[in-house]
């Protein structure tokens, strides 16, 4: 299995608070992705990175920002959490654009 971890694994937070989720890899893969998973929607791409400091938006990027200052870490920040951001968040890594390896996920609840 690809060496990919996510932290925290579970988080409950209140509406309006900032939240940061961390994805850490030990594979030295170039590409990193953040997805959210919601029933009936599959996985939807939030943001992705194709190198240190190189990031771009996905299809559901509103309300989220990302940073990648090191190859191994990709951070997802919810600037002001809303109930609509309650979801399971998955990080993925890849050393080519087409074969992605997924982390275990973070379950986020915004009350």
């Amino acid at each position: 299995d690809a060496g990919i971890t996510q932290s925290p694994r579970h988080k409950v937070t209140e509406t309006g608070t900032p939240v940061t989720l961390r994805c850490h890899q030990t594979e030295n893969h170039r590409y990193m992705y953040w997805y959210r998973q919601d029933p009936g929607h599959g996985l939807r791409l939030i943001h992705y990175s194709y190198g240190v400091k190189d990031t771009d938006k996905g299809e559901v990027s509103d309300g989220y920002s990302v940073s990648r200052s090191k190859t191994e870490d990709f951070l997802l920040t919810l600037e002001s959490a809303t109930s609509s951001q309650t979801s399971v968040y998955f990080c993925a890594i890849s050393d080519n654009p087409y074969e992605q390896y997924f982390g275990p996920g973070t379950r986020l609840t915004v009350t």
Partner: protein
Amino acid sequence: AQSVTQLDSQVPVFEEAPVELRCNYSSSVSVYLFWYVQYPNQGLQLLLKYLSGSTLVKGINGFEAEFNKSQTSFHLRKPSVHISDTAEYFCAVAGSGDYKLSFGAGTTVTVRA
């Protein structure tokens, strides 16, 4: 951007019976196609992929899929399922030169004894 339609949201099946999960994608000049499996409370695991070559692709755990360009389909099959195949299955597509995957909504397979 590519889009993916998984035609069945839930598929109940008896143990040792065959199963087929249907996936259609939006047309493009060339695409790359994937099936992922998600077991309960876990991340996604790659089952198989089509990048080029033979249209019949074999994956892990006895699964296979067939790429049909004229019908823009990539259906997943297994001739005999086990209880342990109970999971959610996702079809995904990427266009040539596109570094992003688009996922279908998923198909939940429940295998009963």
